[in-house]
């Protein structure tokens, strides 16, 4: 497991600077400079990995989808008008491709709990951050985390997407609305419903 700090959304000021940097890299990449696109890949891999992984709960699927997302972005770069930030644009590609993948997966097979990647239970950094040398608390927390992962998979794809983007990745409502092409009100209502569902699932565990 990696000892790197978790990757979350950028603060507004940093995001504006990052958008300018991205615009320059995109322009160079459009003119055929492949190293500029390499820089964008390095920059966005951790964030997009988190997004796709928390939506699919499967590392192999995440790896394959991530490759496809960047390949599609590179092929579509000439059509990118720059009306939105590159960050918003590539996030939209990643969300749409992941949702398509989940819909196909849902049609072919029902996901079993064995398919879920529950790697966090062995994550030393996670244990250290949460257990504080209390084995009982640690065991309970792991079980609760496993339940949470399973509960996440019981949410609909649309609800899981907003929970991943807002609660796990820390994206603001407005940004999520822009990426998904829906209103902020819809984002909030999906979050509200998803939280209720998750609380109900976890309540079953507490009883």
């Amino acid at each position, binding site marked *: *497991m*990696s*000892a*790197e700090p*978790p*990757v*979350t959304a950028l603060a507004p000021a940093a995001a504006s600077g990052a958008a300018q940097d991205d615009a320059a890299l995109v322009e160079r990449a459009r003119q055929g400079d*492949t190293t500029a*696109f*390499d820089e964008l*890949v*390095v920059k966005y*891999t*951790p964030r997009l*990995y*988190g997004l796709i*992984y*928390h939506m699919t709960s499967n*590392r192999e699927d995440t*790896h394959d989808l*991530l*490759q496809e997302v*960047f*390949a599609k972005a*590179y092929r579509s770069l000439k059509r990118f008008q720059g009306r939105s930030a590159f960050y918003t644009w590539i996030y939209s590609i990643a969300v749409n491709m992941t949702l398509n993948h989940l819909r196909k997966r849902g049609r072919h097979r029902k996901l079993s709990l064995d398919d879920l990647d529950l*790697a*966090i239970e062995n*994550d030393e*950094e*996670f244990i250290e*951050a*949460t257990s504080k040398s209390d084995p009982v608390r640690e065991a309970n927390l792991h079980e*609760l*985390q496993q339940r*949470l*992962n399973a509960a996440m998979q019981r949410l609909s794809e649309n609800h899981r997407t907003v*929970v991943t983007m807002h*609660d*796990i*990745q820390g994206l603001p409502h407005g940004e999520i609305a822009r990426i998904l092409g829906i209103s902020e009100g819809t984002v909030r209502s999906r979050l509200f419903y998803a*939280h209720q569902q*998750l*609380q109900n699932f*976890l*309540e079953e565990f507490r009883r």
Partner: protein
Amino acid sequence: MSDFEDLQKLLRLKRYEQPPEGYYERFAESFKERQRGEMLRQSSRSLLVERVSTWMWSSGTKRWLYVGGATTALLAAGYYFASGGTDVAPDASTQQPLPREAR
């Protein structure tokens, strides 16, 4: 602490679910290789198209006549074999036997 705060705390902990160490670097490298491979394939394909079109345009009328003749011959041969094939009777050994009541 409320149930909602508990839930938010748990969800935030999911940020710690990270891929194995060095994964991001390896991913960037493997994507770069894949991308360069695709570009190479694309450029060799466009090179072939370019060479064929150059040959077509640079060649004289004589070559165009050869191409036209060869195409006509191929079309005629195709028509001959296609029309001849419809007259062939199905192999008796592959036919299903009639049901007992129908005999």
